[in-house]
């Protein structure tokens, strides 16, 4: 049991405040068919580690650090399994909702990991560069550079 008087808000509020961005992040990172797994595993891990959160103001960066690790794990699993056709895949597995922009997101998912995560954290989870830096364990300048490089690369690929 987490000690009472830790000053942390009820965990339900973490889900309420950050759940929408977290599900968007998971969907963007690993696709709609596995996003629910990523969402649940992130929040279960966060619930387990909640007492380790010292500063409630850092909740978002803390939560997305966990999410980024879970996404990497799930991404690796996915890479190990035979790769389906990205367009078919973007249509979603049975029961999963299709993405509105499959062409873009299948390209995002092919970016180098740091760039991919930087871009999803920036645009889907709406994190600041400083928060992205914290999540990815890199400098703020490196976070900016990763977003920048990812955009440049996506622009190039989409133009082809």
């Amino acid at each position: 049991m987490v000690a009472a008087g830790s000053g942390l808000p009820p965990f339900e509020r973490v889900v309420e405040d950050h759940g929408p961005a977290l599900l968007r992040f998971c969907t963007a990172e690993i696709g709609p068919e596995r996003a629910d797994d990523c969402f649940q595993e992130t929040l279960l891990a966060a619930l387990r580690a909640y007492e380790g959160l010292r500063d409630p103001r850092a909740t978002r960066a803390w939560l997305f650090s966990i999410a980024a690790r879970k996404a990497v794990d799930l991404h690796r699993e996915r890479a190990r399994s035979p790769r389906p056709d990205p367009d078919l895949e973007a249509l979603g597995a049975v029961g999963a909702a299709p993405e509105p922009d499959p062409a873009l997101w299948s390209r995002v998912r092919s970016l180098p990991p740091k760039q991919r995560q930087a871009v999803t954290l920036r645009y889907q989870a709406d994190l600041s560069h400083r928060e992205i830096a914290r999540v990815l364990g890199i400098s703020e300048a490196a976070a900016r550079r990763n977003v920048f490089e990812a955009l440049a690369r996506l622009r190039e690929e989409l133009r082809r």
Partner: protein
Amino acid sequence: MSWARAGRPISRRARARRLTDMTNTDLRLDSRSLEARLRRAPAPTDRLERARAALATRAATTGLVDVAFARHASPLGTLIVGVTPRGVVRVGLPSEDEDAVLDELARRISPRVLASPAGALGRARRQLDEYFAGRRRRFELPLDWQLAQGFRRAVLRATARIPYGRTASYREVAARAGSPAASRAAGSALANNPLPLLVPCHRVLPSSGALGGYRGGADAKARLLALEGAR
């Protein structure tokens, strides 16, 4: 992100790309529309509710939730029912702010407060429904008394023994809790009853015969007493 932001180290490769891009007059628009496309949500909102429901179910089986809560519709309005592994720990009346109730649980018990899975807390919810339908005269639920200590707890325990449809005065309750002179303290304990309805503090009235106060408002108190045929 924009080109205009200065003071950012740019790799040689990026600088080369930047020069190439500069020649493209569509660049600014292109960059903005790409960012707009990236911001568009790939997750429809109805999926969020499903994902949260699945989380509640999984979390409940892990033993990681110290307080599970459910919202329950009643004739008084929406109640919040909070349970710990020991029993019902809190009933929030419609007059109470939900955020404040959850904050209190986090502060006084544990911040691991999470919505319970659909269908959980069935026994408590069923008994509340039966009570409001006039089909139940006493609750048979395990209670967790940890939000009331000492004399306050004694007052609540004494209150829990007032039968359905009967009333007692603050002085009587104070006496049954062991301090006949402490009717004011008894009133304060009842005003902060963490388990209204289950511990029927609405059955305690001033000896003047007036209705007296109630955490859920005087109107709710009058309705409950009328339901029980007490007044």
